[in-house]
């Protein structure tokens, strides 16, 4: 009896050993220094940019729209909760020169005194988070130049009373730092420097700002997105401008839903910012969530691929 038990034991141990053996013999290599992908699904959250770039030879066509105030004195039922108005519309094309270097052009209406905006921009993601966490964050540079094509305003105190061509230009420089904490959560911090060559009387030319934002997945294809931008305005300039215009400056807060349909990215959002462009919404958000001055906005982005079809080797 004891003998058979022993033999049985011997065989079972050998058997399991063999199975484990094959398991141990193979070890698979992943891609070396594998980079974290899809920190965000799109180059934009609501108001802020993300670290995402489109790949080489891809083009992204993007339309952003902001309606009028939903509530408050300028909203309500009489203009169908803002849907009768649009405070800003932006149409843009981005192109991937490299997988991490994009250039773009855009036209937007402009939501402040300064209108008819043409924008040229560049985004370069120079640090990429890795799966093994040796590089904990992705970092991108974003720079844009905006030109106003409108007729100069005769009102000398206006931000649009341009005297020469240079007065029409504004520059935005951002460092976008993002981390994908899990497959469901990514956060971004965006230190920003905004320079306007020309401003309204006694406004400041240089504005520093800090943006924070995030994306939390609800399902595989739907995510919650939110961002908040805090401009560091000088209190003396701010007070003067607020006294003269009778308008207050607010920080831009946006919350929304992001839907990925495979090729298209839709954003449905609510924000108090009237403008879409960085050169305007950061420094010139005069609408407040508390007064019902937030609006429905959406963006549609469609990617096109110009890579030649090739056989994969």
């Amino acid at each position, binding site marked *: 009896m004891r003998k058979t038990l022993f033999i049985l034991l011997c065989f079972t141990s050998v058997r399991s050993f063999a199975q484990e053996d094959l398991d141990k013999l193979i070890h698979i290599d992943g891609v070396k220094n594998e980079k974290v992908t899809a920190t965000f699904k799109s180059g934009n959250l609501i108001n802020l940019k993300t670290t995402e770039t489109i790949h080489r030879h891809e083009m992204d066509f993007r339309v952003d729209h902001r309606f009028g105030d939903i509530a408050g004195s300028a909203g309500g039922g009489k203009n169908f909760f803002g849907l009768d108005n649009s405070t800003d519309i932006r149409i843009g094309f981005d192109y991937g020169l490299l997988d991490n270097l994009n250039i773009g052009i855009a036209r937007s209406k402009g939501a402040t005194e300064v209108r008819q905006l043409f924008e040229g921009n560049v985004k370069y993601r120079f640090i990429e988070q890795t799966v093994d966490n040796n590089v904990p964050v992705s970092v991108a540079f974003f720079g844009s130049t905006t030109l106003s094509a409108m007729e100069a305003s005769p009102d000398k105190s206006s931000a649009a009373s341009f005297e020469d061509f240079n007065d029409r230009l504004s520059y935005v420089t951002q460092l976008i730092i993002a981390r994908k904490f899990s*497959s469901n959560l990514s956060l971004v911090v965006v230190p920003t420097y905004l320079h306007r060559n020309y401003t309204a009387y006694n406004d400041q030319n240089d504005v520093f700002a800090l943006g924070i934002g995030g994306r939390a997945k609800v399902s595989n294809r739907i995510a919650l997105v939110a961002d908040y931008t805090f401009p560091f305005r000088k209190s003396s300039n701010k007070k003067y401008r607020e006294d003269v215009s009778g308008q207050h400056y607010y920080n831009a807060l946006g919350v929304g839903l992001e839907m990925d349909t495979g090729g298209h990215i839709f954003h449905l959002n609510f924000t108090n910012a009237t403008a879409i462009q960085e050169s305007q919404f950061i420094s010139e958000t005069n609408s407040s969530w508390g007064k019902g001055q937030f609006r429905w906005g959406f963006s549609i982005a469609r990617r096109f691929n110009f890579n030649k079809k090739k056989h994969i080797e």
Partner: protein
Amino acid sequence: MNKINIYIALFMMLISMTTFAQQKASFVSKETSITFFSNAPLEDIEAKSILGASAMNLQSGDIIFRVKNTSFQFDKKLMQEHFNENYMESDRYPLSEFKGKVENADKLTKDGSYTLNVTGTLQIHGVTKPYSTKAAFIVKDGTLKAVTSFQVRLADHKISIPSIVGKKIAEVVKITVDATYKP
């Protein structure tokens, strides 16, 4: 020396002998390429990983394949992102694995060409399903080459394709495996 000790000695011997035999009979393929091909009305999609691994035992016929989902390379990078993010959910299910048996694997000890049945279970997207297919083996100078292809129905592995991209992604994709084994 009592009886127990003799048994233990015998037991140890047996283990060492078997493992020794095992190692000789085990073949490993470090060059395992796995390709999948989706043929849909609007688009053909092909992706390939050359970073798969496989091992087989000629005595028992045991065979195992394993590949990291993120190692599949696509022509279009956006597709690669969608593959990992939306369909395979590679964060949650990083590996795809086949474990099975090659019938009459002992034939493969001699040079020649053989077509043998392979049966086992395939785990993709966290769902394990039984599969069986025929594989072609070529044995020459101690090297063993194996090629096979089979069909995988995405729905079997709970990979759902939204109707909006239904014409771009096939319901059934063809998987081709190519491995070169050495002892």
